[in-house]
């Protein structure tokens, strides 16, 4: 339960406190209800989704006759059991588009169109299972590459002296807010000439380019705030830049790298526009697959809600497990993208 008592009590303003408490509760409810609705719906059978509101999910007697428990005298728990299902998730993962459900079809021996009723169906190009793998294939290199390149640049910006250091960095600060839209057409044409459109490297390279300004900015701020003495003694002991970079800088920058990695990971994972333009349907990622289900296929709510929740699963886990790093990465600088 959320306790709304103030730690710093202030008995003079009871009315203010009451109103504040009501305000907090209203905002929290407004923020939670949409997501709860999605989660509940994703576990309900389609006939019930279309005929009853998700908020009545615990009422076991409403809905069409076909959705009722065969035995009217069954217990509440038994009835409730038939009103929730994981079929939506199976159908979304395999990309099943039939009229019943993947499991029903397979159990009855009629293989759904283009499917084998074994694990290979998880790789069906229409399904979220395949899209999940594609998302991973897009996201991991797109996270590692910019950070690796940015580490070197950030080191030069914070601990090396060279002409134009300040000017180049100022340009970089400006580049952080350049919108992706500004570069899409030329890059698309460039990739077309190189035959890269529809391939993973196209997205990796694009995300690397756009992730760099923010990554360098954040890492440079962290590196340049490390104590100077550390470096001086290392230099006096005869260490060169490479040695200092690998043995002193990298270990001390790990928390910042973690924040940045989580931030970039979620940014790429959640991106639609770049995947839409450079990958499209040839290597559908999760966001693409869902947007396609919404805009062109008109898939039912049972598939949409399950697919949406599948795409949110990994970000949610990352968010709740590593919230502190994520927030830090998000807040550390300006904006990007």
């Amino acid at each position, binding site marked *: 339960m959320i306790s709304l008592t103030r730690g710093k009590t202030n008995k003079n303003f009871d009315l203010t406190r009451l109103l504040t408490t009501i305000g907090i509760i209203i905002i929290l409810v*407004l923020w939670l209800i949409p997501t709860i609705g*999605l989660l509940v719906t994703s576990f309900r059978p389609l006939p019930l989704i279309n005929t009853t509101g998700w908020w009545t999910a615990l009422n076991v007697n409403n809905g069409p006759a076909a959705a009722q428990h065969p035995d009217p005298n069954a217990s509440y728990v038994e009835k409730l059991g038939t009103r929730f299902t994981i079929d939506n998730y199976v159908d979304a993962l395999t990309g099943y588009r039939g009229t019943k459900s993947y499991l029903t079809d397979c159990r009855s021996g009629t293989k759904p169109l283009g499917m084998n009723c074994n694990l290979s169906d998880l790789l069906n190009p229409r399904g979220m299972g395949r899209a999940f793998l594609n998302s991973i294939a897009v996201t991991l290199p797109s996270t590692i590459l910019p950070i690796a*390149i940015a580490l070197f640049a950030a080191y030069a910006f914070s601990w090396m002296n060279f002409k134009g250091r300040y000017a180049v960095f100022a340009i970089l600060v400006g580049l952080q807010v350049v919108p992706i839209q500004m570069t*899409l057409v030329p890059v698309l044409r460039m990739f077309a000439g190189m035959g890269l459109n529809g391939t993973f490297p196209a997205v990796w390279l694009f995300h690397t380019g756009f992730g760099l300004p923010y990554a360098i900015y954040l890492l440079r701020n962290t590196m340049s705030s490390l104590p100077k003495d550390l470096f*001086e003694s290392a230099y006096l002991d005869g260490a060169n830049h490479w040695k200092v970079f690998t043995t002193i800088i990298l270990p001390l920058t790990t928390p910042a790298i973690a924040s940045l990695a989580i931030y970039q990971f979620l940014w790429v994972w959640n991106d639609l526009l770049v995947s839409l333009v450079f990958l499209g349907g040839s290597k559908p990622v999760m966001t693409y697959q869902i947007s396609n289900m919404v805009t062109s296929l008109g898939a039912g709510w049972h598939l949409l809600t399950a697919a949406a929740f599948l795409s949110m699963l990994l970000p949610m886990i990352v968010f709740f497990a590593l919230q502190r790093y994520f927030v830090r990465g998000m807040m550390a600088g300006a904006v990007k993208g």
Partner: protein
Amino acid sequence: MAKPTVAPVMRQGKFVPWLYLLPAIIVMSIFILYPMINTVNLSFQNASGTASAETTCREGQACWGAFENYRYALTNELNTSSVKAFWDSFWVSSYGNMVKWLVGMVSGTVIIGLLFAVWVDGIKSEALAKSIIFMPMAISFVGAGVIWKFVYNYGTSQVQTGILNAIISAFGGDPVAFLSKVPLNTFMLIIVGTWMWTGFCMTLLSAAIKSIPEEIIEASRIDGATDYKIFTKIQVPIIMPTIIVVITTMVINVLKLFDIVYVMTGGNYGTNVLATRMYTEMYANSQYGRGTAIAVILILFIVPFIIMNIRRFIKEEAMR
């Protein structure tokens, strides 16, 4: 705060720093700098970039010469036959929608974020309450689009399965097609954006509020200031610099906004914004010239913020 950056004592050639910078500079030049210049260039050419935009002009119709794509980008959505027609068409054009988004989403996220940050400051479950508000930041616009499409769902049958229409029906009202009814639909999309980004504003503002020394608040409380007075006369003025940073960040985010509109309405029913319009020109119509002209207009709106960002950086550096 960060310690001052000082010249390292290390010996280094003129060459070594650039070696460390080279990969980054190459990648950024190829994927940001060169395309930006190229985009400007393409915006003055025809659909496929093979001839000047002037060649696309048709006889007997308005033509801005080399700026023909800009004429299209700026005026095509507008009806100039009368003042009223202009006014009406402006508010369903991508520019009118931009104004709605800027006003609605920036004020929504900052005001709710600020109020929430102040309200939960010091309560026992502060961390939990804040992560609930922040959580939408972690999910994609596409996921949020599905979530809210379901909230706004307009049932064709007797039963309303979208919670908003169910509530309206329960109170005896007629269900509303939230996403296709102009001008309500853009407003409904703005709510989705606000839902997603309030957590970001709230977290930044909350950190600023916490940095205000406790003594100042306590002293004014002893002097008899009400919570409201403390909020308006002390907290808000002190954190004003942070509020301004948050506002500019949100303005930039709103100008670039694409996914919410694309997923929820596809830019139909008068909900287009600059980014979705650009996408349509590029893909559905293969009009690279027009698409890039819209992109250039978009960046012109953002240039002031780029300059602001750099100036803020220079100021911060001077203080280090």
